[in-house]
């Protein structure tokens, strides 16, 4: 099991029956594959759909039916379509129970940066700023460090922000970190890893929860 799968599997366990959930592009999209059997969850895609189903076979892909990652998806019974203004009314209006997004950087105040690198990368924030401003619970799903081995969980984000004081939890292949008013708390840790190693790979100071658990990815 690789790191991304561990992250997706752990976050899948946070989803509850009856939740309306928006999954970001990339790693967060994988979470839908690991939901416990029988879990009654409705996925929203911000391009204008509730009730997003699994990807179709190549031959059944309909170009008129895509998710926000521009990938073909399918309809589940009871799905609905709406325009972008209504889609973001439900996001901004606090109707989403959970939003899971990728990140480039997160800091100990729950600030998030995930949309641009000045002078290098021009992509845009898409719906990320609206999602973090409106969802009831915002979970960041990302690999703990950059490909170059630099920390991503910082004292202060250095890249332009997507939102301030918006992240509730950070899940990486190394563990589960909760953002609290007192700073970052390591709640769960991946099997076979020590808390000192997680701290060494994190710029921000981590408090270790007194009841630190092993991160379950079953």
């Amino acid at each position, binding site marked *: 099991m*690789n790191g*991304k*799968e561990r992250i*997706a599997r752990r976050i899948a366990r946070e989803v509850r029956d009856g939740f309306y959930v928006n999954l970001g592009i*990339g*790693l967060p*999209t*994988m979470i839908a*594959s690991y939901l416990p059997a029988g879990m009654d969850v409705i996925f929203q*895609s*911000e*391009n*204008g*759909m509730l009730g997003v189903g699994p*990807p179709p076979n*190549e031959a059944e*892909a*309909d*170009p*008129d*039916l*895509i*998710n*926000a*990652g*521009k*990938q*073909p998806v399918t*309809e589940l019974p009871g799905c609905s*379509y*709406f*325009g*972008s*203004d209504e*889609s*973001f*009314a439900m*996001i*901004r209006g606090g109707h989403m129970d959970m939003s899971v997004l990728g990140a480039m950087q997160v800091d100990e105040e729950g*600030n998030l940066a995930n*949309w*641009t690198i000045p*002078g290098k990368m*021009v*992509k*845009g*924030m*898409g*719906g*990320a*700023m*609206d999602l973090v*401003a*409106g969802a009831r619970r915002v979970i960041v799903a990302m690999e703990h460090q950059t490909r170059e081995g630099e920390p991503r969980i910082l004292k202060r984000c250095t890249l*332009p*922000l*997507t*939102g*301030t*004081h918006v992240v509730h939890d950070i899940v990486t292949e190394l563990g589960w970190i909760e953002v609290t008013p007192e700073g970052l708390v390591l709640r769960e840790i991946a099997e076979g890893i020590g808390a000192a190693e997680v701290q060494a790979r994190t710029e921000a100071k981590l408090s270790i929860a007194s009841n630190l658990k092993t991160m379950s990815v079953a």
Partner: protein
Amino acid sequence: MNKVVASADAAVADIAAESTIMLGGFGLCGIPENLIAALVRRRITGLHTISNNMGVDGFGMGLMLEAGMIASHIGSYVGENRKLEQMVLKGELDLTLIPQGTLAERIRAGGAGIPAFYVPTGLGTVVAEGKETREIGGRNYVLETALRADVALVKAWKGDRLGNLVYRKTTRNFNPVMATAAALTIAEVEELVEPGELDPDHIVTPGIYVKRVVVGEMYRKPVESRFIKEQIAGGAA
């Protein structure tokens, strides 16, 4: 009343250079591809475009970009277009990126006669720089202003000669809201039907917003990203 125009070329024939144009679509899904092709044939320049994305290299609005027609663009995500990224980094195109929901709501406000409104989105980020903020009910908000355009080019599934429109699946996206926010809204449809054929309960864009209707000649509808299955399979490996 008959708003039907003979061709996409005729529908866009009087759009002036330097116009502000809204274009519907999300990625390549639900874009007015025939109207874009007609506009590219006219090669008018200095356009100010408003659209969630900017097509891809070689299709959709990417064709307008490559033809040098666009002077400025307002959108939320342009990550699929390398040409655009290069132009912006070189300072050849004035790009304004704004949150997708704010983009949609600014357009909605423009069509609804609301000059400005407060949102929580973007507070404490570059998006809020230079904008009025205000505390309402214990939370801070950013003042955003309405967006309107000279022309809106939208894509619907079916329409009638009165301009009533319905959309198919996720092609709806920005199309209905943009239809409300321009002085001249031109809709391309896949199928023209007789008035009364569309169930009045199901009409999404009432005809009052639409000035011209044209049947698209041909739809390529490329799918931008097909790798979801591979991505998931890779993750599970």
